[in-house]
């Protein structure tokens, strides 16, 4: 297997230009919602709303201003599939359409997907949805086709401020630590990395530098896999089965006793 590859998104240098959104759509030939004709969301400069089957990159805008404007921040973050090391979508896919590639990224094979939507519910980040053109579940492929020929993903290529960094995970982690250190040294107490270590789903191959709580960015603070329910539900199933068996035994015994 090749070296694990991924994204490190430094939200502190994101300028919300959405070049990543457009570059992604252009390379992957994803349609605009409703042919590009929409209404103003009123939610800052975000008019595409969320990641889905035709929006594989999405820039979030979070306005934080005190009434007197003495304190003010406008946070921007380009969101994308996290390419989790332990990926919920892979766990639940009944057809095996979702695979882990040689780059340690998670890719949905459109020709194997039957559109059952299980992965949509299984993703703790709300990344996946059905692409109405193909009728299958789709999401970021980390530009698998580009990586195969040694090119970086379209979004990272288009990002003018190097907010989206692409490369071997090990290198990105070093880069992220250095940037975090720089911010901490400058007195930023809120800066932290999200998904850079193995505690979160074994590590996110697309991880972030944030300057506020994950919830502020619409990210789960402690994302869980669908398999988290396996042990407890297995236990309850076993207990239920045992109880049923006992009940059964007793019911037979009763009937048996009556027949006698």
């Amino acid at each position, binding site marked *: 297997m090749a070296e694990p590859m991924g994204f490190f998104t430094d939200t*502190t*240098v*994101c*300028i*919300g*230009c*959405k*070049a990543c*959104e*457009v570059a992604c*759509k*252009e390379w992957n030939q994803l*349609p*605009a*919602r*409703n*042919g*590009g*004709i*929409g*209404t*103003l*969301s*009123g939610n*800052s*400069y975000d*008019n*595409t709303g969320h990641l889905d089957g035709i929006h594989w990159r999405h820039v979030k805008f979070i*306005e934080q*201003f005190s*009434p007197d*404007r003495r304190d*003010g*921040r*406008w*946070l*921007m973050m380009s969101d994308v599939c996290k390419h989790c090391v332990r990926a919920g979508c892979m766990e639940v896919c009944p057809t095996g359409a979702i695979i882990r590639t040689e780059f340690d990224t998670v890719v949905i094979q459109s020709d194997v997907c039957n559109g059952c939507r299980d992965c949509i519910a299984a993703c703790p980040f709300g990344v996946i949805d059905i692409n109405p053109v193909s009728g299958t579940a789709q999401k970021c492929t980390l530009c698998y086709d580009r990586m195969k020929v040694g090119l970086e993903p379209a979004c990272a290529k288009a990002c*003018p*401020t*190097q907010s989206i960094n692409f490369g071997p995970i090990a290198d990105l982690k070093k880069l992220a630590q250095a*940037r975090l250190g*720089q911010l901490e040294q400058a007195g930023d107490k809120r800066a932290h990395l999200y998904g850079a270590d193995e505690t979160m789903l074994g590590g996110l191959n697309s991880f972030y530098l944030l300057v506020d709580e994950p919830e502020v960015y619409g990210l789960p603070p402690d994302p869980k896999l669908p398999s988290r329910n396996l042990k407890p539900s297995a236990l309850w199933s076993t207990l239920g089965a045992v109880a049923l068996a006992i009940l059964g035994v007793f019911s037979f015994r009763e009937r048996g006793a009556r027949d006698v």
Partner: protein
Amino acid sequence: MAECHPVAFRWPMQAKLKGAKLIHVDPRFTRTSAVADIHAPIRSGSDVAFLGGLVNHVLQSERWNTDPFFKEFVVSYTNAATMVGEAFKDTEDLDGVFSGLMQYTPGIKEWPLDGFVGQYDPRTWQYATTKVGHVLTPPPSGPPFDPLVRSLLSAPPPRDETLQDPRTVFQIVKRHFSRYTPEMVEHVTGCSKETFLKVADTILANSGRDRTTSFAYAVAWTQHTNGPQTIGCCALLQLLLGNIGRPGAGIMALRGHASIQGSTDIPTLYHSIHGYMNHPSALKKHDSLRAWLLAETTPRGYWANTPKFMVSYLKSMYGAAATTDNDFGYDWHPKIIGDHSHLPMFVAMNEGRVKGLLCVGQNPATSLNASVERKGLAKLEWLVVKDNWLTETATFWQNSPEIREGQRRSQDIRTEVFFFPAAQVAEYEGSFTNTQRMLQWHFKAADPPGDCRTDLWFTHQLARRLKKLYASSSLSRDQGFKALVWEYDSDDAHERGRGEPDALKILKDINGYYTAEPDRHLAGFGDLKDDGSTTCASWIYCGVFPALDRNLSARKQADPPGAPGAQLEWGWAWPANRRILYNRASADPQGRPWSERKKWVWWDGAKWTGHDVPDFAPTKAPLSKGVPDGIGLDALSGSDPFIMKPDGVGWLYVPSGLVDGPLPAHYEPAESPVANPLYRQQSSPVLKYWKIEGNALAPVGDQRFPHIATTYRLTEHYLSGAMSRWNPWLTELQPEPFVEISPELALEKSIGNTDWVRVSTPRGSVRAKALVTRRMRAFTIGGHTVHHIGLPFHWGYQGLITGDAGNELTALVAEPNVSIHEAKAFVCNVERL
């Protein structure tokens, strides 16, 4: 900058990652403010007050007065020590105006459209003892033209290097800005004194021997009735701080289009010819080549070579027909008769004075005071639109608001409209000149589809057909067109078959060659001659194509990582591939770098050398004296870095060249909610305003229009939307017209987020959705609370997404030097629909 120039913004962000401090001055909290260390909000139209405050703060500061670097830079490299004539009276003396103000009289009766509300006689602004006008003995013509240039010499003005004399530029500047105190800045701009001082101290701390501060602005800074004065005020500040001609310093003009720099170098401007020479004019003493040279040549500094530039230019126009005997065809060259810039041309159209319009890559139907522009279009006999899509201009006769609302009927419009579909940039080769004055060649990837043609094709075919039309004319006015050299047919069979010209042949004309040996290209403008032996369309581009097989704009060799970053092998920058202009100023008067950290160009004992191409006579020693009666660079000393200036120094005070005063002064925009807090003079006494139907202005403090409005671009769209509102990937990002308003104003007007509102001015009104956000705020101006709204101007009635154009609101008001409009500051009302 992040909003409108996200790609170039890469570099400020890289600097930030290395520890640079980023300051953003803007009424709104934008995507730039979001990543800036300091956001200083000021109300639209108060830039000179803010910059003037910085100038005053610097001059009063302990650091500036104690660190010898600043004094040495200013005394040696600016006109601070030069004495100004006794007749000059400042705004301090005349309560807001300069000496020489008079009533405006139109220059020529055929063109009473210049729009000035007043006029200055600039004679009193000159340096002491500078002679005004030309010497009386009739100087000889040429070639050679050196005697003519020499005849223009006059005694240099006196200097006081102690800077104590009250007539020195320094004392005049100091006095002029003394009223721009931090308190006054807060009072005028609405920016708190605290924030202003934070900005001022950050800039001051980041200027000096070891550190430099750079200013970057986008074109909105110029779009005010005192726009060039705003840029001039910034230049004045940067000169005082030693931030010109040095790495990481200067003023970066971030221009609008990809090649808008190129479009002023090889101008589409009406008032200049190639290489920033003034266009021959019927309003000036330009009756002959000799007269033009006398009026336009300065005997000292590099512009003393103007005869060489002009004669070589005329040779490029008229070729063999341009001879010494006929003034190189000067009489054939068209002359301007007044202001032919965008606004007066549309006023002229409204008056029925214009027959036809070629509109290439421009969309006036949604431009300034759009309904007036469309009314002008409707009075044309013919209109040609060449664009990628059917723009609002192409369909103004069919679906503009007037037609929709029944105020005008299509069948009553007699304008014949032609539409030419345009090729896209990857479908032809040519050069871009970016804002750094760098030419970059781009190559053709594919033929354009169908009937789409390049702009080059259009111009080439038009010229060929016109020449054919005039070929048999014996009228004297047509002789210039007959003599015009037009030999750009492509040698490539495929391109020739498609009627496309050869872009390299055009580049060759621009670069220049030896007239007698057309295959021998000129290597640089130092080789130009004033006798017709060299042919060169644009002297500033001379050197980009120094040999048949060497198109330097096509170079793509980046510097290795860690290098100082001049990138001399990437593309080619005019002049002479210099990356930083006036870079002699990066060394001290003795020729040593001001500091190791900021070394760029220096004297090595025998010649000038460094990371960049030195912008100086290559072997002129640092402390050598100028030749007293010398012309050109000979007249300048070894420590005069500003070689284009006749006195070789940067101008804090501008004795000539501007029509609205030698120093910047804060004037209110043509429409303002407040009286000018600084002077009795409300707005620029010489601004341009066209009093025509549909162009009314709100009086000062008009309660019907209590808010300040500004217009701007969003990252997601481009200008009038003619290129972006057809692309669904872009339209879904910003789908509807909106106006940004603060929650406080929304509450006052009972406006909810995304409610439809009407924004109105005395000129018109637009419908837009309200985007209620704390990124907008009210300003306290002179004790009054004034709400500020923001309006992206991208919409129109064509495209995938449509909506009212922001420019339905703006006025035909302009700045007096360059006629730039004032869409960045006006007053309006907002109501919920």
